């Protein structure tokens, strides 16, 4: 909302400069977003001039050479070349002398125009930013009339232009919060300024109403949907003369950001800006049947609005129609058929209250926003109708020569005349409560002063005040706390001390799950991966690109009903999409080597089995704080996943030649870095997913320490992406894993118990064995461990060999064995029987000892 400062000062004029006013308004809740300077920056060299003669330019058809009295010291008129067709001798005009700085920043100089030196410029309204439309130069006849009635009697050439015309105006651009539609008005802001500064507030501009109440004979109005139209008022004006508005009105409206049209339309806009209440002027002679009916539109009904567009309505929208059908969409825009014309002589002025939510809905549904709809949708009070009627009536009489017909149509919430005001609400404000909420006392007298300044009626009572709410605030102020806010904001939040809560036994902490998540993320960062943050939204095409069959559980996604675009219309069921998108982006811009991870939420419709095979009832995994409503049902299956994607080289090329490419084992190594961090017993087993390489993919299984393998939980997958999937994102060999961090946290022990270890060194031995390829490394190690018993501390595979030496469909595994006892140093003799059992166990699964 743009408020020209001189207009504001007309109602409240504190002895403060514009910066101080900005500060007071901002700090009391009416934020000044910007201070605009409207018009010229310096009024120097702008003067009143009188055209003494205007002769045709010898060398230019469209230019005139004028002698203009400008009150110069030597008494000589200035020669000014002017291109306006309406310039003529005898006119009093606005002149910019050389040295003047125009609103657009250009500095005027003496200049030759087709051989004639021009000492300045005769100005138009638009050059002074008084209006945008008027053609030709600005002729100050109207100011002459004003001057004729003043003591000086004359507007002398050379008079500073700024003395007679507002050519330099500070304009406040205000942010009005949605609860304060009463402040979408100059007088509303003036009241705020009054409360914020203590400067006097002038009487409301609607107090003096030249019109009258009672029946109105020359027009009729019917309201068929009073639920959507709590009040409808109308007045009729006769003998209206349509003309341009006076300069002061044009200057104000233009500074406030309104276009100027003609006196009647400008008056409706002026009354709206002053009172906050929109108005609409009809040419009564073009209202068919001189009657208006307010009704819901029919579904599919079409109306042509003022902007020339045809709009299709529905039955939740309201139209105003005459005998020939709809003339406007209520609260949004008038129709062209009955708008005011240059020859209009009878005007019906409509001022109505509409249902805010209904206007909001209609406005969005039609994509039609106007100054009026923006006000109505915030919910105006019915009292404002007559405020606007009173202001407009006075100006119609003063500026259009109109006479107001007796009476006012005034239809209230029951659909019948006439509207009646609801009694004000009275609220008790306890003095102690003010301090309890704010943390600082405010004297009762100060509270009373603040509320009175804001138009509340205040009566002292024991330990507090009884406060009646003014009509314009009834929607916003309904409770004691609302009054406390009024006191707080005007008394000044700057006065509040900065204190800390007096704590009662609350200690801040992260939950176990949150700590597990951080540790898992840190493990990936520590291994050189970069975290990405992807979109929760996904394209439904993702499901096809991941080769998911039509009945796949991951297709049970949550769809957004009103997405911004089809490509953001589902909630991602996996982190793979955003990881692949980020990998593709970086491969294209920064080269093929990508090592990234994402830690974020994935979403499934309730009841969909999770891909890891665990039951997918709403669980605490979406809420690792584990402090969401105990047992409160969550609306969807959300769980926190951690996904890793590797493509290309794992590290920059080294001068030493070490070079590792992303593959299954690279991904598994990173997964190991996370799972071993939490000391889980875990394993992988071959398993297939549609989007993974069928020979290089596995399920990740884990159990908590001390639990049996039957209790293993599937945490997620690890594998190389199917080449068709990687190819769809323009990637080569790509490996990935994704795990459910909520399940991981549930398995990870919050506290580790100490494990005793002895002082004696281990005995290490190696063992090479050939095995059928069908025996997995895990099976071989399992055989070794089962056979060895407690003396075997560790066993691992340190070499794998296939080739002719070990025969077809066989391979050689080299195992590193480490034996240890708590109480002594072991010897080869000690472990010999164990080793024999190990060899026997390996032979039992087809193994042969090598060498």
């Amino acid at each position: 909302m743009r408020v020209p400062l001189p207009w504001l000062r007309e109602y409240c004029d504190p002895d403060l400069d514009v910066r101080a006013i900005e500060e007071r308004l901002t700090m009391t809740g009416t934020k000044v977003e910007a201070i605009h300077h409207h018009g010229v920056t310096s009024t120097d060299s702008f003067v009143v001039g009188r055209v003494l003669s205007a002769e045709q330019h010898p060398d230019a058809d469209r230019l005139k050479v004028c002698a203009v009295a400008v009150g110069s010291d030597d008494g000589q008129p200035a020669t000014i070349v002017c291109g306006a067709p309406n310039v003529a001798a005898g006119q009093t005009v606005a002149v910019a002398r050389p040295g003047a700085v125009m609103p657009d920043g250009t500095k005027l100089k003496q200049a030759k125009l087709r051989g004639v030196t021009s000492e300045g410029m005769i100005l138009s309204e638009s050059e002074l930013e008084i209006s945008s439309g008027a053609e030709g130069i600005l002729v100050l006849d109207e100011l002459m009339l004003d001057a004729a009635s003043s003591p000086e009697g004359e507007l002398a050439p050379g008079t500073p232009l700024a003395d007679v015309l507002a050519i330099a105006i500070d304009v406040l651009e205000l942010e009005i919060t949605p609860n304060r539609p009463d402040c979408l008005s100059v007088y509303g802001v003036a009241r705020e300024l009054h409360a914020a500064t203590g400067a006097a507030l002038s009487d409301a501009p609607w107090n003096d109403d030249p019109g009258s109440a009672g029946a109105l004979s020359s027009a009729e109005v019917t309201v068929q949907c009073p639920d959507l139209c709590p009040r409808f008022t109308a007045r009729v004006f006769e003998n209206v003369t349509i003309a341009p508005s006076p300069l002061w009105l044009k200057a104000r409206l233009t500074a406030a950001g309104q276009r100027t049209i003609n006196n009647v339309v400008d008056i409706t806009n002026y009354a709206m800006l002053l009172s906050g209440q929109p108005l609409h002027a009809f040419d009564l002679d073009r209202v068919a049947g001189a009657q208006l009916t307010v009704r819901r539109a029919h579904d599919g009904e079409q109306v042509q609005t003022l902007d020339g567009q045809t709009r299709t309505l529905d039955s939740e929208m309201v139209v105003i129609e005459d005998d020939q059908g709809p003339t406007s969409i209520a609260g949004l825009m008038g129709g062209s058929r009955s708008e005011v014309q240059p020859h209009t002589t009878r005007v019906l002025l409509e001022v109505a209250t509409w249902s805010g939510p209904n206007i909001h809905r209609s406005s969005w549904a039609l994509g039609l926003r106007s100054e009026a709809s923006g006000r109505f949708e915030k919910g105006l009070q019915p009292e404002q109708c007559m405020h606007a009627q009173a202001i407009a009536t006075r100006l119609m009489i003063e500026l259009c020569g109109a006479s107001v017909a007796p009476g006012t149509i005034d239809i209230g919430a029951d659909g019948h005349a006439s509207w009646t005001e609801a009694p004000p609400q009275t609220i008790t404000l306890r003095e102690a409560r003010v301090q309890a909420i704010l943390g600082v006392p405010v004297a009762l007298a100060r509270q009373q002063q603040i509320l009175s300044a804001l138009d509340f009626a205040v009566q002292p009572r024991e330990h507090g005040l009884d406060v009646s709410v003014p009509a314009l605030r009834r929607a916003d102020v309904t409770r004691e706390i609302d009054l406390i806010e009024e006191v707080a904001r005007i008394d000044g939040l700057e006065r509040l001390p900065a204190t800390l809560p007096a704590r009662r036994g609350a200690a801040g902490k992260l939950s176990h799950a949150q700590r597990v998540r951080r540790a898992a993320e840190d493990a990936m960062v520590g291994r050189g991966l970069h975290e990405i943050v992807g979109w929760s939204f996904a394209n439904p095409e993702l499901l096809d690109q991941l080769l998911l069959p039509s009945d796949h559980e991951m297709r049970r996604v949550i769809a957004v009903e009103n997405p911004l675009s089809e490509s953001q219309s589902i909630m991602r069921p996996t982190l793979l999409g955003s990881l692949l998108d980020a990998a593709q982006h970086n491969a294209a811009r920064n080269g093929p080597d990508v090592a990234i991870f994402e830690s974020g939420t994935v979403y499934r419709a309730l009841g969909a089995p999770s891909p890891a095979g665990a039951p997918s009832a709403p669980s605490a995994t979406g809420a690792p704080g584990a402090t969401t409503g105990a047992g409160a049902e969550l609306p969807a299956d959300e769980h926190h996943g951690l996904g890793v994607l590797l493509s290309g080289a794992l590290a920059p090329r080294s001068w030493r030649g070490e070079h590792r490419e992303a593959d299954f084992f690279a991904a598994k190594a990173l997964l190991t870095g996370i799972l071993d961090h939490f000391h889980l017993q875990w394993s992988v087993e071959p398993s297939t997913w549609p989007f993974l390489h069928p020979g290089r993919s596995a399920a990740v299984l884990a159990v908590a320490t001390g639990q049996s393998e039957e209790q293993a939980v599937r945490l997620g997958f690890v594998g190389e992406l199917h080449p068709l999937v990687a190819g769809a994102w323009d990637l080569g060999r790509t490996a990935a894993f994704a795990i459910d961090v909520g399940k991981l946290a549930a398995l990870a022990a919050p506290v580790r118990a100490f494990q005793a270890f002895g002082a004696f060194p281990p005995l290490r031995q190696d063992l090479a064995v050939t095995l059928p390829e069908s025996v997995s490394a895990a099976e071989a190690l399992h055989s070794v461990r089962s056979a060895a018993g407690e003396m075997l501390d560790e066993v691992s595979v340190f070499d794998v060999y296939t080739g002719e030496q070990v025969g077809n469909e066989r391979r050689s595994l080299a195992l590193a064995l480490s034996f240890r006892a708590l109480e002594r140093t072991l010897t080869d003799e000690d472990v010999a029987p164990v080793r024999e059992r190990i060899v026997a166990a390996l032979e039992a699964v087809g193994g042969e000892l090598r060498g």
Partner: protein
Amino acid sequence: MIDRIQQLHSEAESAIALAASSAELEQLRVHYLGRKAELPQMLRGVAALEPAQRGAVGKAANQARQALEALIGARTDELAGGELEQRLRADSVDVTLPGAPPQPVGSLHVLSATRRELEDIFLGLGFTVMEGPEIETVHYNFDALNHSPTHPARARTDTFYVADDLVLRTHTSPMQVRAMEAHPPPLYVVIPGRVYRPDSDATHTPQFHQIEGLAVDEDITLADLKGTLLEFARAVFGDARNVRLRPHFFPFTEPSVEVDVSCFHCDGNGFLKDGSRCYLCKGEGWLEVLGAGEVDPNVYAYVPTTAENAPGYDPEKVQGFAWGLGVERIAMLKHGIPDLRLYYENDLRFLEQFS
């Protein structure tokens, strides 16, 4: 004879001193002290001397031999040390070559890093970190936060819907009532999380991140809010920062405020040392960072008294504050990130900057 011994002694002494390698030294040892060398032979021949000479010659020869042995020993150690030094020098590497194998440096995304930083600040102030669902009911997202049934924010132009009564939460505030349902007062929580609104332009992305704060106890005042956020502002933006509260409006807080932090780029002056206007705060001296207020009493009324939160939330007995801050905004201010879209593009040249 004794002269000869002395001659040999001094001759050997200078030769040992000049020996340049342990091999040369070994040759000298053989030459002067070996089986066939003159000095040992003299010693062996002492018995054949006249008794009067035996003592003096034997003693002189013996002393010379011992002295030379000691000299050779010392010189051997000296040369060995030098030769090791020489070998090590010859074994030098180009220390300016990169370390191997390369250890790539990873990074948290700046939004994660910022979120953690903020979480840690509030942990230090005694707040527990809670999280909640992103797919949320209309009840928690709007109704229980005192939004009127016709509030514009409920419109499908302002909120993503996944069903008639389910939305993608538009803020982290729905967790206020969820948290109070689960816990009795006193309650001090922060709730980080992802939120959604259907806006997409240079200053809006349809998903973004907030951190909600909620403190409810018997006597939590607006001044306590100011103090808590002052601590936060100083922890994030520096010890010299100040905060100011400006009155504002939110449906679920009353009084409501917007919170500004004094600009850390121009020290709150609005202008830089060279007199130019501060680009960061645009000359205002203040940066708007979040919205907050005292929890509206109507919100407490949405918390049913249950076994979990007994004795419930009676607005005459408890009061508190809440805030909602934008993680993207804090990170933008702190790191000078010019465009929201950089966060979600995930370009490695962006990600690497915040390791």
